[in-house]
């Protein structure tokens, strides 16, 4: 008998099972980093695909975010006659929040979906099984290199997003608000200290972990043919984006507490 209660119980069981499987994969991924065999070439290849390949969208994201940030805040700052400090606002928001979060969301859309789709198609065409038969562990061969690449590349991509964002803010500051560019940069750097920079680099590394693991999990648990691959891809973006936004809140809280 399917009652609403039993239906809910089934869903809850499924959810718990999913969380358990996800944790197991995360553990296997993390410990896999320190185990042999190491697929160095795979790691470098993934760093290229994930990191270098994401630079264009990161630049576009950064520059427009910096510009709109400068534009919006200058309106507010003008009320207080403080529009020359627009650099401070741009720097603070880019480095501590917008850079890490937006870069990660863009990468979740571009890379997380790609990981889920690639691994999902490999499941669907039995390539994962073939890999096990041919003697390599798919977690070490496929998941670990993507994990390493995401965790290392996201902080770098974030630095690029931050820098480009500051540059975008400068464009608005200099050409629209008529602020001296040297003043813009010095006021921007003045306000930044380790309390912004450390969380600003730790967060993207953690988000990279989320992107790689959610994408891999969704991909490896794909079932139901090409429709299933599509579903995994969509879900990987949804789940990793939500996890990024939610964990951002808690990590920020954590850093405000300890720093």
């Amino acid at each position, binding site marked *: 008998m399917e009652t609403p209660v039993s239906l809910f119980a089934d869903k809850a069981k499924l959810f718990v099972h999913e969380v358990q499987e996800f944790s197991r994969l995360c553990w296997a991924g993390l410990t896999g980093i320190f185990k042999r065999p190491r697929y160095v070439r795979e790691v470098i290849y993934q760093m290229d695909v994930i990191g270098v390949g994401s630079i264009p969208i990161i630049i576009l994201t950064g520059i427009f975010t910096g510009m709109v940030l400068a534009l919006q805040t200058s309106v507010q700052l003008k009320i207080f006659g403080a529009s020359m400090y627009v650099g401070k606002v741009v720097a603070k928001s880019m480095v501590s929040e917008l850079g890490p979060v937006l870069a990660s969301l863009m990468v979740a859309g571009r890379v997380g979906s790609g990981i889920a789709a690639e691994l999902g198609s490999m499941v669907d065409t039995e390539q994962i*099984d073939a890999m096990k038969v041919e003697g390599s562990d798919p977690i070490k061969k496929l998941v670990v290199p993507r994990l390493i690449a995401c965790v290392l590349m996201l902080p770098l991509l974030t630095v690029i997003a931050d820098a480009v964002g500051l540059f975008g803010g400068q464009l608005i500051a200099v050409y629209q608000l008529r602020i001296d560019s040297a003043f813009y940069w010095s006021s921007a750097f003045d306000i930044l200290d380790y309390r912004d920079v450390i969380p600003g680099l730790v967060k993207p590394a953690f988000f990279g972990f989320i992107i790689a693991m959610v994408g891999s999990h969704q991909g490896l648990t794909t079932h139901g043919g090409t429709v299933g691959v599509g579903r995994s891809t969509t879900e990987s973006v949804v789940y990793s984006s939500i996890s990024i936004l939610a964990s951002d809140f808690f990590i920020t809280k954590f850093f405000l507490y300890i720093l």
Partner: protein
Amino acid sequence: MPEAGAGMTDSEAASSMIHLEHVYLALGDAPILKDVSLDLNKGETGVILGSSGSGKTTILRLLLGLYRPDSGRVFVNGDEVSAMGEDDLYRVRGMMGMVFQGGALFDSLTVGENVAYRLTERDELDDEEVETRVRKSLGFVGLEDSIDLMPAELSGGMKKRVAIARGIAASPKMMLYDEPTAGLDPINSFNVIRLIKKLKESEGVTSVVVTHDLVAAFEVADRIAFIHEGELVYVGDRDGVLACRDTRVHEFLGRSGCVALFSGNGAPAGYSMSGIGRDKV
């Protein structure tokens, strides 16, 4: 062999390559295999026949440890694969080659890299030796010229042949073939059948062949198992299957024209494809 456990005596374990003991398996809610028991000796070729969806591929996946039975036990070469951890499974799989039904080629690698996969993964041979082995394997299936192509550039039958080349490249002790001749033209089918026999004769390879191709089945088989909706209906030698009175077996063979081909007396008349060589059973 201590791993053989209570189900097998030592002498059985020593001569038996495959031993399935009352295996039950359900995927989702559906029972797929029901009380399947099977044996195959070292150096023999076993053929699994059965209609589509009857559970043939599932048996191969059990042998590889890709599925675990819900109950019952699976032994390969004396090791109980149904009770092994992943790390031990990799060791057992190392002596098995598998040709997946759909080929399952790695589509990010070239044909040559696919065939070389296990050899490069083991990292025991130098590049030249690997290349020689790869060319030799591809030569068996007539695809030396395709070594630098990507799987996406191959036809269905070519993929199947590359999968066969990949399976045999590392000289496994046991080969599992899932529909090796499906989608191949008669000449290539003939070559694949010849290859299966050659590996058995020259290297003593044990093979399990899942097929719908009855000509191929009777050509290579030492033993035949017939499975119907997850139950073994017949297990025995090649000629026994023709004499088998079970209606499901009879219908399967009859519909294919096989019974007519292998007319009446149980001694298959003209089944030997000329040139493959005489077999004795």
